Each structure stands twice: as C-alpha cells, then as structure tokens.
C-alpha cells in the first residue's frame, strides 16, 4: 500500500496513544488500591495492603460476589439454549421473517438498558405479580445475553457447513445421534466463547439489575454503586474495582484460545 512514511508513523503513534488512553485509567485504579492515602492523594504518600485485607474480609463484598456468580450462571444457561436454537433456525432454514428474528435478538442490547429494565420490572410487578428477586434478575439478564451466544454459534455454523452432518446421516445416524456426535462437538468452542461473553455481560450489568432485583438481591455492580459515594468505603470499592480488572484478563484469554477468531460480543 502506498502510504507515506510520515502517515505510517502517525497511524502507529495514534494506535499507541489510543491504547495508552485505554489503559492509564485502569492502571491508576490498580495503583490506588495500594495507596496509603484514604482519599487517593496523588502521588501516593505510601503503599499498603490494608485495603485488600479489608475487602477480602468484607461480608458485603463476598455476598455480592456470590449473588453475581449465581445470576451470571443462570442467565448464561438460558442464553446458551435460546441462542443456539435461534442460531440454528436462522442459519439452517429459510423462512418468512428471518431478518426480524435477528433484529429481535439484537434488540435487548440495541435499546437503552433502562428501557429493558423498566419494561421487565413493570411486567413482573403489574402484569404477572411476580415478586422481584434472583429469578427476575436471571430472566432480565438472559434476555440481553442471548445475542452473544447467537452470534458465536451463527458464525460457527456459517463456517462449518452441512457436509459432516449429511455424511453422518448417510452413515445411518439419526437426528439426535448426529447432533450428539457431530454437530455438538463442532459447536463446543463456539458455545464456550459465547457462554463466557454472556457471563461477562451479566456479571457487569447494573441497569437492568437495578430494576429487576428486589431489596434482597445485591449483585457486585449494585454493591459497588451503592458504596461509590461513601467516602469511608472508597478504598474498599477501589480494591474491588482493581480485582475486577485483574480477573477480567482470565476470560478474555480463555475466549481467545477457544475461538481463535475474534468474538467481539
């Protein structure tokens, strides 16, 4: 390509600067988790592990973490089933309203979270009369998690084609056997990547959670938000934030190894 040397240099500088902008705030959070100064004075007057200790011993943090894990697992399980079914339908069949189905799956993340949140909470409250709690959080999360599984499975189906499944049928395997021995193994890593993304999406969600969780259910983001404006909790909130940044490296590393391709959502 005929890009001039200065242009190339400029683009490279833009890339490095952009990555710098992305990472500096995160680095500051991690550094501040060791900041001996309660109000994060800069530069830090000294370093300490004290905040990490108090976060580890905080029952509020532990309970919230467990709640988030439960909600994430529930939502991911539902999203895996619904997303896979929808992806198979859309990729393997021609039918009227196919584009509408894809649009319907994207809709919960395309619409502002607050709309999904109050629409679902209104349905639970006034239409169905279901008390808000863990179950309603899982339903809310699953609604917007379907799309991640759907996208991953759809991409995989596009790539693998029908050949192996037809061969399996020709060799005498029925529909279920073919699914178990041929289709599912081909889908496995796509399902894992989609499931990981769904879990991460659920784990991080706060807006839909705010409206679908009752008084008793406090996920980690809700806990962080509740404590964000309390000055004496600031160091512990900061430690939780730092821990989440470090932990977030694990799933991305896994998803990359699993999918090989870039799973953007």
């Amino acid at each position, binding site marked *: 390509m005929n890009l001039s040397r200065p242009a190339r240099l400029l683009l490279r500088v833009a890339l490095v600067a952009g990555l710098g902008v992305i990472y500096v705030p995160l680095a500051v959070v991690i550094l501040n988790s060791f900041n001996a100064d309660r109000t994060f004075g800069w530069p830090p007057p000294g370093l300490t592990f004290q905040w990490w200790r108090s976060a580890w011993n905080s029952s509020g943090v532990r309970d919230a973490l467990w709640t988030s894990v439960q909600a994430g697992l529930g939502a991911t399980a539902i999203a895996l089933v619904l997303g896979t079914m929808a992806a198979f339908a859309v990729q393997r*069949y021609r039918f009227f309203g196919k584009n509408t189905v894809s649009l319907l799956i994207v809709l919960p993340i395309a619409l502002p979270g607050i709309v999904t949140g*109050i629409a679902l909470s209104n349905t639970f409250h006034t*239409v169905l009369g279901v008390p808000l709690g863990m179950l309603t959080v899982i339903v809310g999360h699953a609604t917007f998690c*379907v799309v991640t599984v759907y996208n991953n499975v759809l991409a995989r189906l596009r790539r693998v084609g029908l050949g192996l499944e037809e061969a399996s049928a020709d060799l005498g395997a029925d529909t279920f056997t073919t699914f178990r021995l041929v289709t599912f193994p081909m889908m496995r890593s796509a399902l894992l990547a989609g499931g990981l993304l769904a879990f991460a999406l659920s784990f991080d969600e706060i807006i839909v959670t705010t409206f679908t969780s009752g008084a008793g259910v406090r996920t980690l983001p809700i806990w962080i938000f509740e404590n964000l404006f309390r000055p004496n909790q600031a160091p512990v909130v900061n430690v939780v934030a730092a821990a989440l940044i470090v932990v977030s490296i694990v799933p991305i590393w896994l998803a990359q190894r699993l999918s090989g391709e870039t799973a953007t959502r």
Partner: protein
Amino acid sequence: MTAEAAVGNERGTGLRRGVAAYLHRHALVRLSLLLSAPLLWLGLAYLGSLAALFVTAFWSTDTFTGDLVKVFTWANFHDLVTGDVYRTVALRSVGVAAAVTVIDLVIAFPMAFAMAKLASPRAQRWLVILVLTPLWASYLVKAYAWRVLLSSDGILGWGYGLTATIATLSYLWLPYMILPIYAGLERLPNALLDASGDLGARGRRTFRTVVWPLTFPAVVAGSIFTFSLSLGDYITVKIVGGKSQLIGNVVYDNIGAANNLPFAAAVATVPVVIMLVYLAAVRRTGALENL
C-alpha cells in the same frame, strides 16, 4: 469406542427412532421447534413487556394515593412535548450521544487502521486482545476510574459535569467502535488499496473513494453501540455528571423519587423511537450483519 460403534449403540428404542425419523422428514416441524423457545421469550415476553410499558405511558397516577389510573390520556406526552426542560434534556442527550460517537470514531479509525493494515499477523492477535480486555473490565470500574481521574484533586482534575460525562462515555464505548471497524478493515483486501495506489490515487483519495465506502457499514455498526449506549445511560451521569441530567436520569427519577411510572414510560419512548429510527435508517447499509 469408534464413532461407528457408537452410532450402532445409538439405535435405541423405537419411539426415539420414530421421533428422529419424523423430525428428519419434516423440516418445518424442526424449524418450529427451534424457533419456539426463542420466540416465546423474546417475541412474546420481551416485546410484550415493551408493549405493556408503552400502554402504561398513556395512563396516569393518582396524585394522592400514587396508584395507577388506567384511563387513556395524552397528558404524559403533552407534558413531554410542551415542557421546555424535557426538550432541553432530550436534545442534550442526543448531543452527548452524537459527540461520543464522533469522538470515538475519530480515535478508533486510525487505531483500527494501524491494527488491520500496518501490524504483523502476530501483533494483530495481541492488539485485538489488548483492545478487548478493557471491554471485560467492569463498566462501573471504568466510570469510577474516571471519577478518580477527574475529581478536582485527581490527575486530570477537570471536575464533574457535561464534559466529564462525554469524556467518560467516550472512554467506555471506545472498544465497541474499534472492533467492528477493525473487522471491516481486515475484510478489505489489500489488493484494492494497492490497485488504487497503482492507478495514481494518493492516500487521502484512496481513503475517500475506497476505504471509507467499504468500511462504512462497520462504522455504522460501531456507532449503533456508541450512540445507543450513551443515549440510555444514567449511571455515568450520576458518577461524573455533576448536576447535568440526561434522558436516562429523567426516567430513573420518575420511577424512583416521583413514583410516576406512566410519565417515566412516556419519557422512555424517546430514546426507543430515536434508536428505532436509527436502526431502520442503517439497515440498508448492512450494518446489522457487522454487529
């Protein structure tokens, strides 16, 4: 066990075989079964909830008891359209969403281009990971990081307000813009760029006539995220926005403090209508396949 033996053991009972054979012959039944659960969930439950919310927007609340009054009224929409406050807030929200989208585009495009066209395949893999990783870090954590940076005794020290909101939202949604554009540029064959150059076009002309038109759907796909996510946000505004309000805050306050669900529902239709118009407008560009 070999696959063949496994298949042999799988013959199973007659009923199972019957169901399998039936499904094998009837594609329509297979399709209906596959679509049933997703459509019940998203088509019936989710769209139904949205519809129910929309209906609520035409009701009102009793000022004394706070109960819903289920009688049709245009009052909420009337207030929404005539109230200067709401018009200002709506315009401000669209303005913030547009500003965030433009800022992200300006930052993301050169980054994505350098990733897709200048980096070696090995470096590309790492760069994608570098861009993806912060996407996994909690939304709140990132907004919080900016609260710390922007606080008056922080490193940047801009203080809180509308500028802080735009900066934070741009930061939050930047990866959502980089990744679709990167994917779009990666699909763009290098041969096209070379051909353009061989035919005498300089960098700028190649960009305008080859790169931009072909990556436009990807840019639009990215803008759907940045625009929609900014439009509905109220958390970031609460964290770094100071006193300024966006549509999301008006909705939130009407549900919480004011206990006026019908009016909140009416306000919530504003971002929905804007997003639906946006989605309908961009459907033709093929952006939805780039999400």
